[in-house]
């Protein structure tokens, strides 16, 4: 039974031989095979040259139409999904370190040379190699669909959030409405997960999540109407420009608080993580998910956290407005960092609240506050302060 070192030695030797023999054997084969598929020869030549010279790679990709300026690159890479996924993994590490520091412990330490920096990647590999269990009586098609739907909703939600005047994926007049339209999918996904995994705990978790998400969408949307009234448009770009003089958090403080609280409820984080209440419901609606399913759900969760904190900064903290010393994107990320830290710190100092207290908080306190916020916005707009 060989130890871990021997296993590692074998993996490295295999990788070494592949890298050595690959270009010598595989590439000529590609060159012979590609023309048969009608790929012109010089395209294959440019691909080979691009492999060696990164600058050449950029032009090659541009010529194929998936360069940095193309829509595919924007969706797939920078402001879109891959960036959000990387940002999410960084946030997972940041949360675990922050939580550890608050609890007098050290947090992930041994993965990666410097203080556990590679912990998310290590976890990703672990989850990839874990077995994907499907409960025997589960409703298989739906059970398998939920992780992808969750990531789809998380990803789609990002498309409409601009990071700076030039960096955006989709610019539309009614960006805010589309975001909330996408977000209203999450209760559906959660319920199908709860029902499809044929487990009593996840069924109850699914019902609770349904109650929580549905009843918290109303204050979520209501609290942003004040912002829309002040900025006069639904387009996130214009909202940020309207905050050039004064951030909306000042006139709209109540709206900002209501939005912040409902945001935590939407994300199912600690004060409101009823569905995943591990003390009585094992793990809520994602009890039965294992391996990369669970990885996908966690990734979707953190992508939504990234999206929501970006939305909060744009709506209330004046997005990328800031003195010119730093590029606008940097200002957005600094403010987002503060918002994210506050959300993560909440996890360290709060207990979970009960489902009926949660619903009561939502209907009895947040909705009236959101309405009151509308009148404040009306007063502020009529007095012409903002």
């Amino acid at each position, binding site marked *: 039974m060989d130890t871990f070192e021997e296993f590692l030695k074998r993996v490295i030797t295999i990788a070494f031989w592949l890298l050595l023999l690959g270009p010598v054997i595989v590439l000529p084969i590609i060159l012979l095979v590609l023309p048969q598929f009608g790929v012109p020869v010089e395209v294959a030549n440019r691909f080979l040259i691009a492999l060696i010279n990164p600058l050449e790679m950029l032009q090659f990709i541009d010529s194929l139409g998936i360069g940095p300026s193309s829509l595919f690159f924007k969706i797939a890479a920078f402001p879109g999904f891959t960036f959000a996924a990387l940002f999410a993994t960084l946030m997972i590490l940041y949360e675990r370190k922050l939580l550890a520091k608050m609890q007098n412990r050290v947090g992930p330490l041994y993965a990666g040379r410097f203080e556990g920096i590679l912990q998310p990647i290590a976890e990703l590999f672990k989850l990839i190699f874990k077995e994907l269990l499907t409960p025997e009586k589960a409703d298989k098609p739906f059970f398998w669909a939920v992780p992808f739907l969750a990531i789809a909703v998380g990803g789609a939600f990002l498309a409409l959030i601009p990071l700076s005047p030039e960096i955006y994926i989709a610019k539309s007049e009614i960006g805010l409405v589309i975001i909330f339209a996408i977000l209203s999918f999450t209760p559906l996904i959660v319920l199908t997960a709860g029902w499809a995994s044929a487990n009593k705990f996840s069924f109850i978790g699914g019902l609770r999540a349904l109650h929580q998400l549905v009843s918290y969408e109303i204050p979520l949307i209501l609290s942003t109407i004040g912002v829309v009234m002040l900025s006069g448009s639904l387009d996130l770009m214009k909202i940020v420009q309207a905050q050039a003089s004064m951030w909306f958090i000042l006139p709209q403080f109540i709206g900002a608080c209501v939005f912040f609280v409902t945001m935590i409820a939407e994300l199912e984080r600690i004060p409101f993580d009823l569905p995943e209440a591990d003390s*009585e419901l094992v793990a809520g609606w994602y009890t039965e998910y294992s391996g990369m399913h669970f990885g996908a759900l966690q990734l979707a969760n953190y992508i939504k956290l990234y999206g929501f904190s970006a939305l909060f900064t744009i709506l209330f903290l004046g997005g990328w407005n800031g003195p010119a010393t730093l590029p606008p994107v940097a200002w957005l990320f600094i403010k987002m960092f503060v918002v994210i830290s506050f959300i993560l710190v909440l996890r360290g100092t709060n207990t*979970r*609240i009960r489902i009926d207290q949660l619903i009561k908080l939502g209907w009895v306190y947040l909705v009236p506050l959101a309405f009151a916020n509308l009148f404040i916005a009306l007063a502020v707009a009529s007095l012409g302060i903002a």
Partner: protein
Amino acid sequence: MEVVDQEGRTLTFSIGPQHPGSGHFRLIVKVDGDFIVDVKPDPGYVHRGAEKMCEERTYIQNIPHLERPVIFDSSGILFPYVLAVEELLGVQAPPRAQYIRIIMAELNRIISHLYWLAIYGIFLGHSTMFMWPMGDRELFIDLAEAIGGTRVTFSYFVPGGVRNDLPPEFKERALKTCAYFEKRLKEYDRIFFSNPMFLKRTQDIGVLKREDAIRLGVTGPNLRASGISSDTRKDEPYSSYQTIKWDIPVRKEGDCYARAMVRFQELFDSMSIIRQALDLIPEGSVKIAMRGQIKGKVGESFARTEAARGTMFYHIISDGATHPYRVKISVPSFRSLCAMPFLLKGNHLADMPAIYWGLDYWPVEADK
């Protein structure tokens, strides 16, 4: 909140032996929507037959076994066994040993309460309140380890006294630890006990009124939280507890919050008891020299002490042999089995962890 068990509306499931919320113990819960309709506790998953084992072993060989039900309060639950055996032998532990026993029992009470507090935190979703007590517990485990030699099960009390004396300069170290921990407890209070979210989850939930508490046979902190000041250390002072002055924390409400606050206050009291014991401790021997096998006189003896969870009680019948004829062990957690269905019925499912662990029920101890 009266919840009636209509046919077809209830969902029965077991918060079972393999569940983060119950430990090695099963609660068969019938739920109607979010309300618990009926609860049937099903203990016995970690039953070791401690009482039958005691009949096969000599008085000394029983000591490591009788610590196993609650390993983090091992001195607390071993105390009455040693007192009962001493009554059988007709001996009395020397005064210094009595004070050392007080110190060990109180150290174990703090360790046990901190373990309870950590699990209570994670049950209510407060992960910081899991990590802090677990970290601070190490302080007191180090102190007890300096005396008892091991970290958890010390096998330190023997009939006739204690096995070894306190290590040198134990007093300074203990006073330093207590001073540090009292500062820490202020932080506990701010982050947990007066945290409004914690109050929402525990106040007037699982209310055990005064006469219900007596009727259902609950003892220890659960009883004191319902307005009855009954503490064995004061009712029937043993091992020179009468020379130590402290007042028992008693609260009227009888809900989960009262139980939590009684235990929180007991942390302070235990530290002040340790300080007083360290001042009052006389010099002298710590153990009556007893060679060879111990034989009890024919007859029986029973003794009770105040363990962390409640009144611990032993009834030993001996027929003059080196083995006890019968050892009846009555543990505090077994008595809170009766109160559990009464408290859980009619509450939300989400209150189950707050009430269940508020009673400080330890499955291994209840199964013995």
